[in-house]
């Protein structure tokens, strides 16, 4: 059984992740909203200031 599966296994599908994001209806809709989204993103150093105590 393992050998049969090994024969079937062709390795992972080759994809170019850099091109992935342009596909898909919702991705295109995000692109159409980019001006609004861009305006919502904070301009200060929010992520740099964001420092948490380690938890569980």
């Amino acid at each position, binding site marked *: 059984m393992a050998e049969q599966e090994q024969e079937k296994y062709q390795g*992972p599908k080759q994809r170019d992740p850099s091109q992935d994001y342009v*596909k898909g209806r919702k991705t295109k809709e995000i692109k159409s909203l980019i001006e609004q989204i861009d305006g919502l*993103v904070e301009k200060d150093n929010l992520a*740099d200031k964001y420092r*948490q*105590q380690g938890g569980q």
Partner: protein
Amino acid sequence: MKRIMGIETEYGISGGEASSVVNAYQGKKQSHTNISRTNESIVNGLTDIGGHIGGDYGSLQDQLELYQFGTPSVHTRVSTPVISSFSFTAADDMLDNGARFYVDMGHPEYSTPECSNPKDLVIADKAGELVVGRAAKAANPEIRIFKNNSDGQGHSYGTHENYLMNRVTSDEFKERVVPALLPFFVTRQIFTGSGKIGLENAFQHGGYSSSSSTRSSPYESQRDDTFLALENLGYHFLDIPEFRDVKKILLRLCGEREQRGEQQLFQLSQRADFFTELVGLQTTYDRPLINTRDEPHADQSKYMRLHVINGDANMCEVADFLKVGTTSLVLDLIEDNVAPQVELSDPIKVFRNISRDQSRCWELDLVEGRRIIAVDVQRKYLEAAKTHYQGRDEITDELLNRWEFTLDQLDRDPMQLVGSIDWVTKLALITQIMDKNSLNLNDQKIRNAALQYHDVDRDKGLFYFLQGKGLVSRLVDDEEIETAVSTAPIDTRAYLRSRIGEIVDVKSVDWEGFTIKSKGKNVLVKIREPFSGRKEQVGQIFEGDLTLDEIVKVLSETEGIEVSDQSIFTPSVYPASKNTKYHRSKKSK
């Protein structure tokens, strides 16, 4: 599908203190008093030398650090604390929706009520966002609440899933449960991951790196650590001239990547960087893929609790549903002895590598020597679940369909899953922002956007912006979520526990029961069967005009509920207080 399950989430917070958030909650609440034994392991011989503040137990060192010095904990393997006992008070409430809301290690933490199925749990989890977000606004509008699991600077905090299982022995757990869970857990991140920019703890697997705080970015910290490790390694290879060439090549490649702005990775999982053990009791250091903390809050002779700490917090309802639903299905397979046999080579490494794989092919090694992709590991579990449970009930079938569809999309084109899977949605979002502004992953604006994705504020959170525009797949509706803010599920004991305060004077309450005052005595009502106390069993006590004696009689005659007039809140062990007091000696555990 019927299984007791719940989610506990430590929320990220900025601009204020967790205790002020919990204390500001304006819904109905009662102080929670812990009555269950804690910090016990299903696997014999495991110990936890760390601990956490709040929750159900505490490391004395941590408590002292927080309450005396107010500094973030640096977790390492520590010796037994010198101080033998310590007590403190922390905000800790049971809410009128059956949830618990409290402070845990500096985070506001929300534990959903017990739910009977994954869809109800998604509703309860989403209601938790509203509860925590509203409490934060009531405390201070400047406070921000993030439903995530990492600050990007080496500190992680958990979103834990809890599943009630049939009790097994320590040996059965090690021999049957652990091998069946490991391949599932390390690969499920392809649809449960919430996405993260950068690496954390890349070279310090035993705990947290505090040194990165003095550097300008996590990337620079990781780069410098890499070269430091290389220097140290170099001492062993000074006699090999090529070693210097290797370092030169790496430096050049690193410089080229930095010039291209590609220095950061986008990972699938927020948590994968923080796991270094296969199995263990601890949750705050040397985190294990399979945690053995066994607190069933129910009849221990029949039930055990599977405490899952390797998952991410989800914003997408579909991802949340898949996370808890597929895990519950895999537990069904394990309990029915029909789980697939898959043996991974080095699961901890696989967990990290899948998360960090920029090709998003997710190839991994099996012990038998051949390779497989993560999607196909998941398919083995899916196929077994379809074989045994298809047609069982509506929720199971919906899960199986969504699981299969999601795996097919992940195999073909993951980006088709925008709005369903968090890492995909976040990546699509930040990629568009990068494109518009010609930025890269390391730019401040992109890191801000990645964080804002998790903001639970409907006006500021980028996930909620997308949801508001109809770009997120919904499984439940806002009305159901709003109802769950103040109402417990009707088909678990959360129903009785959350409503009992409407008709009698409740002295104390915990997951497993409550104490009421009757004829001058404390009467303990213990619900050892978590499916007992549901509306169809005890709903009558809230509808008729029953006396206290009649209420107690109904409860005592209800299957799965035990009523006794002996309070177990013995003052010497559990001191009476408005808030929970923890009084733990390390040696007493």
